[in-house]
């Protein structure tokens, strides 16, 4: 009984802590009117969704995807086409492009049932490169390498910041609920040992495809907001570099936690901006170095290492 109360208290404390962080984030534009900082935080929120969606797939089920940019960039392209050709209102486009990406993920999700480990990683990486090549191959539709401009959803830094914050909070809560409550057991069972999971009567195929679809849905949403915010789509969104961002943020924050990638996204975005003064035009280089250093020295990520430290003391 007391244990249950303690656990419950712990949860309440965690929730309270997260709530305070969110309120602080939401209040930032009021106290700090620096457009540059607001821009950074907006970008970090978008990447937080993207990276957390990657984590739902790769961190929980252990199917390391290196082609997650497909869903991010794909969502951006879908939203851009919907707005620029069919004049669909932007707020509607965001969930629509997420849903389209969830359907699209079946193309890669179903073959992934047969391949595991490094083969799956290679397949996803190759898939992303292929989609990028196809997008470039139709310059009549996609304007090739340059991409095309997109109408913004709302103008102004601060409204965009609040939209991104709202989207981020919403997506993270939903993903956290799905990953840690609804599907925690099947997903982690697949990660620990797929054969054992199958032997215990778990329909692993269903959950693998499902995790692909959910993950693609949120990545697509993040991508579509990104295109409205940046007001452009280009094949760079589909490149290995973009997949790498989700990947690096997830690893730095801690895989298999959903919250970890969010923290990783903020840390990496802000850190790389701080270091931008030292080396110009090299934020991905800095990401790369931080990422490799983390995998070598602290593969569990910040969250788990910190909580271990707290427990020990």
């Amino acid at each position, binding site marked *: 009984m007391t244990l249950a109360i303690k656990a419950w208290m712990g949860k309440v404390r965690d929730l309270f802590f997260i709530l305070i962080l969110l309120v602080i984030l939401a209040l930032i534009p009021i106290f700090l009117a620096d457009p540059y900082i607001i821009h950074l935080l907006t970008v970090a929120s978008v990447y937080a969704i993207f990276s957390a969606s990657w984590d739902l797939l790769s961190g929980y089920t252990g199917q390391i995807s290196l082609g997650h940019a497909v869903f991010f960039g794909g969502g951006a392209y879908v939203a851009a086409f919907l707005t620029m050709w069919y004049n669909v209102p932007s707020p509607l486009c965001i969930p629509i492009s997420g849903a389209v990406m969830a359907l699209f993920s079946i193309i890669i999700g179903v073959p992934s049932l047969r391949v595991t480990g490094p083969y799956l990683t290679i397949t996803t990486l190759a898939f992303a490169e292929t989609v990028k090549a196809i997008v470039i191959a139709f310059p009549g539709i996609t304007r090739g390498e340059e991409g095309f401009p997109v109408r913004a959803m709302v103008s102004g830094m601060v409204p965009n910041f609040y939209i991104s914050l709202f989207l981020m909070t919403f997506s993270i809560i939903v993903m956290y609920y799905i990953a840690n409550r609804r599907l925690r057991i099947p997903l982690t069972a697949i990660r620990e040992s797929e054969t054992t999971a199958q032997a215990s009567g778990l329909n692993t195929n269903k959950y693998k495809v499902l995790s692909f679809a959910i993950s693609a849905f949120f990545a697509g949403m993040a991508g579509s907001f990104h295109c409205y915010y940046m007001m452009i789509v280009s094949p760079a969104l589909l490149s290995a570099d973009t997949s790498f961002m989700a990947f690096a943020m997830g690893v730095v924050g801690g895989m298999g936690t959903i919250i970890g990638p969010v923290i990783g996204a903020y840390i990496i975005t802000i850190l790389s901006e701080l270091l931008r003064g030292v080396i110009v035009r090299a934020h*991905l280089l800095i990401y790369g*170095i931080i990422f490799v250093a983390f995998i070598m020295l602290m593969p569990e990520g910040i969250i788990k290492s910190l909580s271990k430290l707290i427990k020990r003391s």
Partner: protein
Amino acid sequence: MIATITELIFSGLVLGAIYALVSVGLSLIFGIMRVVNLAHGSLLVLGAFLSYYLYNIIIPNPFITTILAALTVFALGIFIERLAIYPFRAYEMRVLMITFGLGIIVEQVVLLIGALGLWPMYITSRFYILGSIDLFGIKFSIQRLVLLGVSTILICGLWLFLTRSKLGKAIRTLAQDEEVAMIFGIAIERIRALTFALSSALAAIAGFLLNSIYMFHAHAGWEYLLIALAIVIVGGLGDVRGTIIAGIVLGLAESFVGYFISPSWRTTCFFISILITLMVRPSGIFRRGKET
């Protein structure tokens, strides 16, 4: 029509030989370390850029600069293997991620140096020979003949090295069974570093050769990584002979797809070959003997 097809086969063979050179390294690394080196493509591009740069500042002779570039990448390969891969050899996925990160780092360094103005953003190789030989009314460009010759010599040399020399035999023993190799007194650590460096250097040379066919940007590495991965998967991971065959077959395929459909569909063609192989025979289409 026959002339066109002969030309297509010829250019496909040239591409295929170079691709085989790229992929053999990847396959060797997998055989020895059970690791897919995702930095391979970036190292290839780095080799091409280094060669271009050395041509401009030191000596305008493409062969010497390529050898110098390959040596630099060789040294870098030893460095990477010792520092970033060997200590984590027990964790397969971690090593995979590290090589991916290293690929990004190398790519970004190439971009950064380009931004500093040491080399342009897009390069084409400084190696061209004009002219062609007419044979039965079909033109064979001398440059492509040289490319084919060089890559064939390199592949044959590598093959002889692996099958005849003591070191090559050690490499193959290690690929088959690490414990047995250890019992026979093979210096595993040294062989691992050497193999990694050797295949990186091969990638660098192949980068230079490819660069005289295609233009390179710092980002090009991922595309060539994908091509090499497709070849390695079709040929069977770790199987040198299968990889060489697969390289030539896929080079021919690219040449035909490029002519009859469009050159921009080549990535798709490689991706489809990956998917088909993984569906039909995951251990490799051209693998000899039983499936493992």
